[in-house]
């Protein structure tokens, strides 16, 4: 049976892993390949690099990071941030990434998703959706709007509608981040995850708000997520991947056992 993936996310800027409430108060956390290898050893099922600088000169740096990581951490690698064309995607894949995540560029140019999927296959194309709640009145159905540029810009797009369209265009996976919850450690927005997971046939990765193992369980059982992503709770060593997986397994969720040497 397919295991639910536990994915540490490494925010990268200027060649280093940084942390902070998204995009502000950045603190240097170390060398990306070194951290990625540590997580792989500790049982991470996949690693996500998110280039939050996404400046043109940062792309060569990012490719270098991806290649150095692929040479020492033998787990799947997804890279997001700054890819705007199929040829940029090709460069990141050739450096050693398995999947590329498209966010702002896909909203600006939805056909980019189709072009990338046709060229590299749907399995390599992740569409990342940052969503913010727009309807919060009791008794009315919830709704979410797509935001871009790290939540600084609204788009007017309905998040569930965009999710369906992205999959029609060829996205093989959706990385769904609740901007309301991101960095708050108040739990994933499971209603958002469920609204999208029920409408698309591809895997949905939960992101934004994880505080502890119970949130991962809720993302899967209530939200219907196929994978759970978190950053700060792993970076700050509040919870180990092994501890998170143990709680998930106890809740009846299939997980890949953490290698014994990782204990």
């Amino acid at each position, binding site marked *: *049976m*397919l*295991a*639910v*993936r536990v994915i540490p996310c490494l925010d990268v800027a200027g060649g280093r892993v940084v942390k902070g409430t998204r995009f502000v108060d950045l603190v240097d956390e170390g060398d990306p390949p070194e951290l990625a290898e540590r997580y*792989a050893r500790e049982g991470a*099922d*996949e690693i996500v690099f998110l280039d939050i600088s996404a400046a043109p000169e940062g792309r060569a740096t990012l490719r270098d990071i991806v*290649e150095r990581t*692929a*040479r*020492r951490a*033998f*787990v*799947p690698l997804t890279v997001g941030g700054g890819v705007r064309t199929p040829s940029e995607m090709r460069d990141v*894949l*050739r*450096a*050693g*990434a*398995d*999947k590329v995540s498209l966010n702002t560029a896909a909203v600006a140019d939805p056909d980019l998703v189709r072009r990338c999927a046709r060229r*590299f*296959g*749907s*399995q*390599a194309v992740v569409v990342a959706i940052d969503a913010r709640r727009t309807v919060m009145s009791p008794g009315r159905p919830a709704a979410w709007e797509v935001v871009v540029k790290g939540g600084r810009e609204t788009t007017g797009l309905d998040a569930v509608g965009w999710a369906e369209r992205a999959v029609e265009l060829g996205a*093989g*996976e959706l990385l769904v981040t609740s901007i309301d919850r991101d960095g708050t450690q108040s739990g994933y927005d499971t209603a958002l995850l469920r609204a999208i997971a029920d409408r698309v*046939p*591809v*895997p949905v990765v939960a992101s934004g708000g994880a505080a502890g193992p119970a949130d991962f369980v809720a993302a899967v059982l209530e939200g219907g997520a*196929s*994978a759970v992503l978190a950053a700060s709770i792993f970076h700050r060593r509040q919870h180990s991947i092994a501890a998170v997986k143990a709680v998930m397994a106890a809740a009846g969720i299939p997980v*890949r*056992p953490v*290698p014994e*040497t990782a204990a």
Partner: protein
Amino acid sequence: MTRIAVVDYGAGNLVSIDQALRVAGADVVIVRAEPDLDGADGLIVPGVGAARPAMDRLRRRALVEPIRRWIADDRPFLGICLGMQLLFDGSDEDGARTLGILPGRTIRLTGAPRLPHIGWNAVRRRRPHPLFAGVEADAPFYFVHSYAPLPAGPDVADVALAVTDHGSDFVSAVAHGRLAGVQFHPERSGRDGLRLLANFASLAGRAA
């Protein structure tokens, strides 16, 4: 030193396979044309994506016949993901005719709760095989695909080496003589994946 040739036909990254084989102590040569095969003890065809463009690229590089000959001579061969699917007659994904070395077709996974099938899943061997030496029974490997081969013909029970369940069982590893293929990605499957690639290198070294 055992030399493993890895075919580069523009279908996916080679960084991890290259490095995994080096960690296993093998010498790696990237194959872009037939002469690159000289002196190799084992051949790996990796790859992700669709079959038709992959076959086109193999043809453009004049690698189809050398691959056929390699396998016909029963030399050590490993197909990974698309590189295994290409061994069969054709693919339902885009209707492409593929190498036709093993009877059967590449079909879309049936009964799957979600596709693509992305993540770690148990590979259940039906018989022992040296490729999996030292790997625990039912150990999980990393998959990312929506299609898998459906072997046919009189040797089918023999060819299907392992199965994996995603809605229903599909064939996740095949073997026939010195030919093997895996639907998962050993180069992304941590310690067990490295062991599998090391086993392949060691089989190739012994056959040399």
